[in-house]
């Protein structure tokens, strides 16, 4: 029986961050709890927040369960995380600038050239181009899990367009509306500065040709996209336009937005569509979602695209293994946050180990996401393990394996009271003129007892995430 770290209870003792919450739950009558839970659900429905977290698929109109029991960090715990996250975001951006430039890290033999240059996410079209301030990934979502009081591991990096930040904001909003009392009793760092910080970040990477207050827009694939709610929510909060490809056109080396008052020049595009769909003249010719000619304007410095095309090569699961090396190589520092030990099935000896220990490991597809195409050894049947074994033998390059981590638990409201459930954390680091991180993030919780899969498509929910002020 694995011993899971419970973030609230250390044996019978309540850990410091949760000290003030114990009484809150103890004194809450069951009827009140049910009423509040129903209220929360009604609020989420009314707001219309029903999208899935990035790449998870599933029914876009389904409501993701919200758990009212907050997840809490002390200021001290958070500061260490913050340093680690910012460090990682800096290293990932340095890596991107390097591999689209001189490729020093490859020349130095710190990462295999094949892994970078033959990667599907490597965009030859942007080699040699330096985006404003040399930043490729402006919003870095780093997925973390915790296994002990001071033990955090990075599960994966998201350098393209990590979603879910609207949950971070809405969860807080709803908690404050339902339980104003506990926000008076606890001093909790606010997260509502995120939209301003995002706007500042985007404005700070406007192209050099932009000589006035930059015009920013969010480019969405449209309302069929599962994260459309988030796109419109963020546009609203920042006070910028939400546009689709058909609303934009290129002319004279700039991108223009069609408005009722005529064309308006656009300086920064926060795109929520994949590279492949950005510009049919440069990438997928059949794509109707993007803007023809956009990449020519981008590469000649007429517009900024966030995240920069090509940023995906840094968050590939095979490249992930080398992020600690990036921290050392570019920053000359030791990584504050650890990677989960990872075996690459592409390497014969590591693949052998994986095949011999399938029952204890978590195996993932290199390009998979959302908890699909994944084997959780200890939770799988013999048949599942054998069928996965066949897949790995067939195409070893496509798989990596990690130990089954003892994910921490936090108290969660369940059918008959409160019980520990496993959680992860996705903070959103903003990289522009400054590197900023609002104190908080999205905590996902595996609502099924014993489950280690927090993805919303597989029975996961979300929680408000608190960082206590000093």
């Amino acid at each position: 029986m694995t011993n899971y770290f419970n973030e609230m209870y250390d044996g019978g003792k309540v850990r410091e961050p949760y000290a003030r919450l114990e009484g809150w739950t103890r004194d809450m009558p069951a009827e009140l709890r049910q009423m509040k839970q129903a209220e929360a659900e009604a609020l989420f429905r009314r707001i219309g927040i029903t999208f899935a977290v990035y790449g998870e698929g599933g029914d876009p109109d389904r409501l993701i369960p919200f758990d009212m029991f907050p997840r809490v960090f002390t200021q001290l715990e958070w500061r260490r995380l913050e340093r680690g996250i910012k460090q990682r975001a800096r290293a990932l951006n340095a890596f991107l600038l390097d591999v689209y430039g001189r490729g020093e890290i490859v020349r130095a033999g710190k990462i295999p050239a094949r892994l970078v240059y033959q990667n599907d996410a490597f965009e030859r079209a942007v080699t040699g181009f330096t985006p404003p301030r040399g930043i490729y990934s402006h919003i870095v979502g780093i997925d973390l899990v915790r296994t002990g009081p001071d033990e955090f591991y990075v599960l994966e990096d998201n350098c393209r367009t990590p979603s879910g930040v609207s949950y971070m904001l809405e969860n807080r909003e709803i908690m404050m509306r339902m339980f104003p009392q506990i926000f008076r009793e606890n001093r909790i760092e606010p997260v509502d500065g995120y939209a301003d910080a995002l706007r500042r970040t985007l404005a700070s990477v406007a192209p050099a040709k932009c000589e006035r207050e930059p015009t920013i827009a969010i480019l969405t694939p449209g309302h069929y996209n599962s994260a459309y709610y988030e796109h419109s929510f963020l546009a609203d909060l920042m006070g910028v336009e939400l546009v689709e490809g058909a609303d934009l056109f290129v002319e004279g080396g700039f991108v223009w937005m069609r408005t009722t008052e005529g064309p308006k020049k656009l300086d920064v595009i926060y795109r929520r569509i994949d590279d492949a769909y950005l510009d049919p003249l440069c990438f997928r010719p059949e794509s109707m979602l993007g803007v023809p000619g956009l990449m020519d304007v981008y590469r000649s410095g007429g517009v900024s695209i966030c995240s920069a095309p090509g940023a995906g090569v840094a968050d590939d699961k095979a490249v992930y293994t080398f992020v600690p090396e990036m921290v050392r190589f570019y920053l000359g520092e030791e990584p504050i946050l650890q990677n989960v030990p990872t075996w690459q099935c592409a390497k014969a000896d590591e693949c052998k180990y994986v095949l011999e220990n399938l029952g204890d490991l978590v195996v993932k597809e290199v390009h998979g996401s959302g908890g699909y195409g994944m084997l959780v050894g200890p939770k799988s049947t013999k048949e599942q393990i054998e069928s996965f074994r066949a897949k790995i033998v067939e195409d070893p390059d496509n798989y990596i394996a990690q130990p089954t981590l003892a994910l921490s638990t936090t108290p969660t409201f369940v059918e008959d009271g409160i019980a520990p459930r496993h959680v992860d954390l996705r903070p959103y680091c903003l990289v522009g003129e400054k590197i900023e991180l609002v104190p908080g993030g999205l905590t996902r919780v595996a609502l099924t007892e014993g489950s280690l899969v927090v993805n919303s498509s597989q029975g996961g929910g979300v929680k408000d995430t608190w960082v206590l002020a000093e």
Partner: protein
Amino acid sequence: MILTVNHVTTYQYDVPMRSAVQTLRLFPSRFDGQRIIRWDVSVEGGIRGGSFKDGAGDRIEGWSVRGPVSKVTITASGQVETIDLAGVLRGHREQVPPLSYLCETTATWVDDALETLANEAVLGAEDDLDRAHRLSRAVSAAIAYKPGVTQAHTTAAEALSLGEGVCQDHAHALIAAARAVGLPARYVSGYLFARDDGEPHEATHAWAEVHVPNIGWVGFDPANACCPDQRYIRLGSGADARDAAPIKGIALGVGEESLDVAVALEATQQ
């Protein structure tokens, strides 16, 4: 050799289009084998957009045409002095890592037949340059030049199985074969002056470049069983024909498009 080029591409639409956008890779490469005496690119009625040099060293220019558009005429013309470097792309400034060309595209997908052709061709080769020469010869032998058999979307594997094709198919087949034996290769578009009498003639052409360690990129033209020399003008490169196309465009609207290309190439002996 001094080559004079007049390259006119005309797109016509039966119903006027709302707008048109082009990205042009229509500028002769700058390297030791080519010197541009004069060169001009224009789009009739068009608005010049962003212009830049990409990582592969190609000059690229964006253009747009406001609607209603019933005709788009793109003209590239000028004079280039060329010398024979036996196919070697010497003095070309570029930043793309050659390894990135080992990625597969639909057009250059390697099937069993291409793999066999490649493996047999390089048997007994002395070094990578020799391997590249052998691959090019094998492709020349396996695909006979015959226009009208293949289309723009024909893949290397399909052309090999047909045994016939045009320069695009030869280039795709060589790229695929080179990649099958681990040599990075890419598609090159340009012009070829191919008449002995010096008369103007239709002359857009395509060939391939193979990356050879210690030498760099070396051009091979399997369609003509040779390496590019002073009769060739190099415009730009890419992973395949679509990627390296001198003109890529899109017109928004419902009209049917028809295309007319006229290239006149003349040689002036010094």
